């Protein structure tokens, strides 16, 4: 082996360890405690289910998937698992934005009119735990580990947020429940002695 080849190998050894597929995101630990004044009127849990399963040849679409399906077919054993978890949303009004002008009382008709702030919705969070609905890994197949489960949860999370964003029915249902609840609550709170209560929501 000549000297040039040795230099080349040494150079490669020095440079190759620097080749990484992608930098791990470095995030600092962050904490926020925020005082709020929200009147929560309804809460919704949205359930999502996902399956890990080998692609079958008849399900394959395109040459790459066919190759992957063929490789799966020769693997010894099965690897199937089903996971699910719930994500929580809430509907609320921001009481901090209410002013004294939002409440009026008409003595003659014994009517209280409340102009409540617009109902907002937001994600509260999701289950910390994941439900394992089904798990069948046998033969020479590798177990489904915590990193794969974290990945599944991430993919499901993105999908849920997109579905809620694209399908207005989720928010509409939640807001409708919240409006009904708010009307009933303020009616029971203020509607004594035949007082009539009108609850409006600002746009």
């Amino acid at each position, binding site marked *: 082996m000549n000297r040039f080849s040795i230099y080349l190998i040494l150079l490669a050894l020095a440079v190759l360890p620097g080749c990484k597929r992608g930098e791990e*995101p470095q995030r600092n*630990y962050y904490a926020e405690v925020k005082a*709020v*004044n929200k009147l929560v009127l309804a809460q919704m849990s949205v*359930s999502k289910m996902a399956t*890990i399963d080998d*692609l079958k040849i008849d399900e394959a679409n395109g040459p790459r998937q066919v190759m992957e399906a063929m490789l799966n077919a020769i693997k010894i054993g099965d690897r199937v698992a089903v996971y699910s978890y719930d994500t929580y949303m809430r509907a609320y009004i921001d009481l901090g934005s209410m002013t004294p002008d939002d409440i009026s009382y008409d003595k003659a008709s014994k009517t209280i009119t409340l102009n409540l702030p617009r109902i907002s919705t937001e994600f509260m*969070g999701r289950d910390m735990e994941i439900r394992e609905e089904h798990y069948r890994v046998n033969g020479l197949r590798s177990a489904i580990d915590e990193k794969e489960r974290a990945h599944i949860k991430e993919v499901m999370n993105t999908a849920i947020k997109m579905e809620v964003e694209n399908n207005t029915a989720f928010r509409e249902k939640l807001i409708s429940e919240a409006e009904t*609840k708010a009307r009933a609550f303020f009616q029971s709170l203020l509607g004594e002695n035949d007082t009539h209560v009108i609850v409006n929501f600002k746009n």
Partner: protein
Amino acid sequence: MKLLTTLNRILLLAILAVAAGLAIWLYKSPTAPEIKMEQARIADIKPLIRLCTMDLYEDVPMKGDVGPKHIVARVTLTGSISFDLENIEMDERNDSIFVVLPPEIVDIYESTDAESYRVIDTWNDNFFGSSTFTTAEENSLKSKLRERYRAKVYAKGYVRRARSEAKDNITRLLANISGKTVIVTDPTPNGTPGGI
């Protein structure tokens, strides 16, 4: 002889072109979906009346072990401290309303922000042992983390602050809508750890 060499070169080029075309075709074709997902569905809608006075958001490390297996992860938690106003103890005497502040409800969840749960490392003390955690083991560690965080919420005085805010907010809300004097009393200013 020269013609043969030229033919060989053309043949080689043709093979290379076909191979490149095949590689591009394979590369461009869709990959197999790893995860098949069902449509999200509404599991439950619960109407309620809760006054939320504190929102929490925190990245916390999760370090735990099951036997010789260890895990280090980062979890982003979200939470809230709220009060059930539906069953609030309220008494009206003359021109005053007397209210007893109910026990706090501390909700803790995993955030829906991207990468809210990231496993950093797992290992086994036994050289040949598996470092894979089962779902039940991982869930149990997460439950413990939630309880530790709940204890921290009390220890750091977040609940005390939330209760104090609730007192002010309920006073303001009821005084505004009723026009009466509102007196809110708090029997447990530090909250009830392990209560609800």
